[in-house]
């Protein structure tokens, strides 16, 4: 490689490295400073609720999250519709109640920005033989119609599982292990503890009730907790887990997803106890959905770049959007590496990076599915257009129309079928998909179906890898803190642009040559 180019690469890396290295040298002993590097992940959660055919004065209510030691409501407010008419703290949580002002009031969209923390209890060093139970605890020892903790079958199981152990922690562990090992089932609606036990399988609420019932049977206070698992996308399912009072702490257990004495940061608590997340005027269906988008928020003004992002944020440009912009070059660089070093073939140079960016909006699986679906149907349209012998540009325009039509169709069917995640596929860059479809069709035409689909598969692989890299909070934080790291990216790309090594897949392609001595 020429000396001049080496110099340029060296200077790029030097300029990119100076500040990060100095920062680390200055603050390696200061964990607070290092932590300030990481912008926090916050979640925007939008409740969309509509009482169908609701008449004036009819109502619906939901539980809105409270501030606890592991979750903080940063801001909240109505985006569409009208504000709640009443907010009560009841025994379960913060109940917000909306009353329909007029029959054509439509939907309410309520948005919250939340920060959550993961939590782990050190259960293994905890031994509890007896504990003081306050009045709250006493309430959570009683059987209820759905938590039949004194039913003989529950008693027999609890006796069987808790046998020979005086330590309450070990007893709860045994109960938890049993309920966890039951197969999960995608039941909708309420399953009581006894039904869950008799069926031998249950969804989150059945399993949680059974675990609570077993604990209560031994006199250990336990309660249900309801909430949401925060993951990018749109969903309607809420989640239930439970908490057991051990040594004066309410220790969380999720017997469906296998969290023992710990909760991931993505768990948002909405209410405590055996309650329904939504209530409404009977006989009027309530339609609801949660739209969850993870966002980054800069938390400290220690670094110049962070102060800049904060200024942007105040000007109305969210940090998440900037992160988006900052990550696109990273995705593109990754595509370049996968093409040049590995030798994966993709449709277009940066199409995979663009698709990966859109997947951040729609969620990985829904986005990929919609992408493949639209891609293949439009590619199938291509031979027809070929037979009519249309010119290149009109042909491309027709394919674009088809792509737009299909996306609108998927969105519409998502709304009709009550699958709101699908409604967001319209955020896909339709032009990018149309071009990709045309490339796929051309590949199939020139090199056959096998080659075309192989190239689709390798494109999807690159998309997923780029998506994973771009979703990395660590990388995003680093680029937010030290935007000059782009120079390092430029240096790396110059090096890559002059790299003349054999691509990994070429070892296979030229195996006949490599084998002969």
């Amino acid at each position, binding site marked *: 490689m020429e000396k001049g180019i080496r110099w340029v690469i060296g200077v790029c890396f030097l300029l990119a490295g100076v500040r990060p290295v100095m920062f680390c040298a200055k603050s390696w002993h200061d964990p607070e400073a290092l932590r300030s590097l990481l912008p926090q992940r916050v979640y925007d959660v939008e409740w969309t609720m509509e009482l169908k055919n609701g008449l004036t004065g009819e109502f619906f209510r939901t539980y809105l999250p409270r501030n606890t030691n592991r979750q903080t409501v940063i801001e909240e407010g109505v985006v569409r519709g009208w504000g709640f008419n009443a907010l009560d703290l009841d025994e379960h949580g913060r109940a917000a109640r909306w009353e329909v002002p007029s029959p054509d009031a439509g939907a309410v969209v309520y948005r919250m920005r939340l920060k959550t923390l993961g939590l782990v209890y050190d259960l293994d060093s905890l031994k509890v033989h007896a504990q003081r139970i306050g009045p709250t605890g006493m309430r959570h020892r009683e059987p209820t119609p759905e938590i039949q903790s004194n039913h003989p079958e529950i008693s027999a199981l609890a006796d069987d599982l808790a046998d020979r152990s005086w330590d309450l922690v070990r007893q709860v562990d045994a109960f938890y292990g049993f309920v966890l090992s039951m197969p999960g089932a995608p039941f909708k609606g309420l399953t009581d503890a006894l039904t869950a036990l008799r069926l031998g399988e249950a969804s989150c609420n059945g399993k949680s009730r059974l675990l609570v019932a077993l604990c209560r049977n031994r006199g250990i206070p336990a309660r249900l907790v309801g909430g949401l698992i925060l993951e990018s996308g749109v969903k309607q399912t809420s989640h239930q887990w439970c908490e057991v009072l051990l040594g004066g702490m309410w220790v969380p257990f999720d017997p469906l997803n296998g969290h023992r004495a710990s909760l991931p940061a993505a768990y948002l608590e909405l209410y405590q106890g055996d309650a329904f997340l939504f209530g409404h005027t009977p006989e009027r269906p309530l339609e609801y959905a949660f739209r969850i988008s993870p966002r980054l928020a800069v938390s400290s003004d220690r670094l110049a770049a962070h102060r800049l992002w904060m200024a942007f944020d105040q000007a109305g440009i969210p940090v998440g959007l900037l992160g988006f912009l900052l990550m696109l070059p990273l995705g593109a660089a990754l595509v370049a590496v996968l093409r040049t070093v590995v*030798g994966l073939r993709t449709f277009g140079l940066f199409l995979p990076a663009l698709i990966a960016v859109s997947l951040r909006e729609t969620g990985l699986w829904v986005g990929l599915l919609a992408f493949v679906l639209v891609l293949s149907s439009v590619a199938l349209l291509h031979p027809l257009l070929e037979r009519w012998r249309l010119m290149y540009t009109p042909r491309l325009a027709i394919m674009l129309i088809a792509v737009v039509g299909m996306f609108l169709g998927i969105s519409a069917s998502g709304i009709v079928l009550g699958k709101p995640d699908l409604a967001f596929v319209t955020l896909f860059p339709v032009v990018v998909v149309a071009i990709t479809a045309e490339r796929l069709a051309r590949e199939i035409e020139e090199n056959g179906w096998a080659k075309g689909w192989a190239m689709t598969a390798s494109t999807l692989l690159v998309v997923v890898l780029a998506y994973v890299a771009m979703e990395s909070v660590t990388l995003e934080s680093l680029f937010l803190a030290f935007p000059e790291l782009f120079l390092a990216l430029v240096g790396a790309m110059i090096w890559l642009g002059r790299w003349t*090594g054999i691509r990994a897949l070429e070892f296979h392609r*030229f195996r006949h040559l*490599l084998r002969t001595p």
Partner: protein
Amino acid sequence: MKPYFAANTPDAAWPLGLNERNVRLIFESNDRKGIAWAKDKVKTKSLLTHHGIPVPRTRCVIDSLLQASQLWPALSGQCVIKPARGSGGGGILLLTGDAANGWHTPDGAHWKAPEILQHVAEILHGRFSFGDSDAALVEDLLVAHPDIARLHGPGIADIRLIHRGNALVLAMLRMPSRASGGKANLHQGGVAAPVDLNSGRLGPVFTGSTYQPNHPDGPLCEGHVLPQWDEVVAAGRQVASCAPLGYMGIDVVVDARRGPLVLEVNARPGLEIQNVNRSSLRACL
């Protein structure tokens, strides 16, 4: 892993990879002008003809539908219509017949004047050149030399010569097969055999996965000596000395009547020839 990331393949016997081809051959030796020259068959042919290199005879070039009147006298007997800047063989129409009786293609389909005009219009509007406007070229239909034609089924075989400047580096004979439907392109199911540069003798046929003495459709190829090999090599050398490229693939067809004719020049020749020859193109460097 060291040789892998140091980017330097240990010796000349290692295959030439796409990265090395792009950086060390194409970027170094072929400028944009040269690449554009090679892409346009009309430009290629005019330079080659100027230097007295035999090429398929051009009957006419149509770059606007206003010239369509020139088309009909050119379309008599056996001829071929090509897009000047097509790729991968798209848009090539082989015709036999004349204006009075209509035309037919090798597969027996009948073509009438309006259909041919439509095809020419499609070429001009860039259906085969990704939307760029293009010109249509009418040439004499080539007749394969019988000593080559008997090696394979229907279709026409061509010889690919890789030149680094004046030096001929590797050569292969690309043949159509029944599986490729008459096309000689390697990635479309065609097969190829290496050609010994001195003698014109064919080596074993490479089918994409195996090396065998016979063409997959039957005839024995290995050991067969190509007719007029010295003239083929001479034509290649002449092209290399006048082309504005430093690294190129030259496609030659041996015509039964006129001998070796240069079909086209490729500024980014593929690397599959290394598999066919079981030897590396790194000798170019």
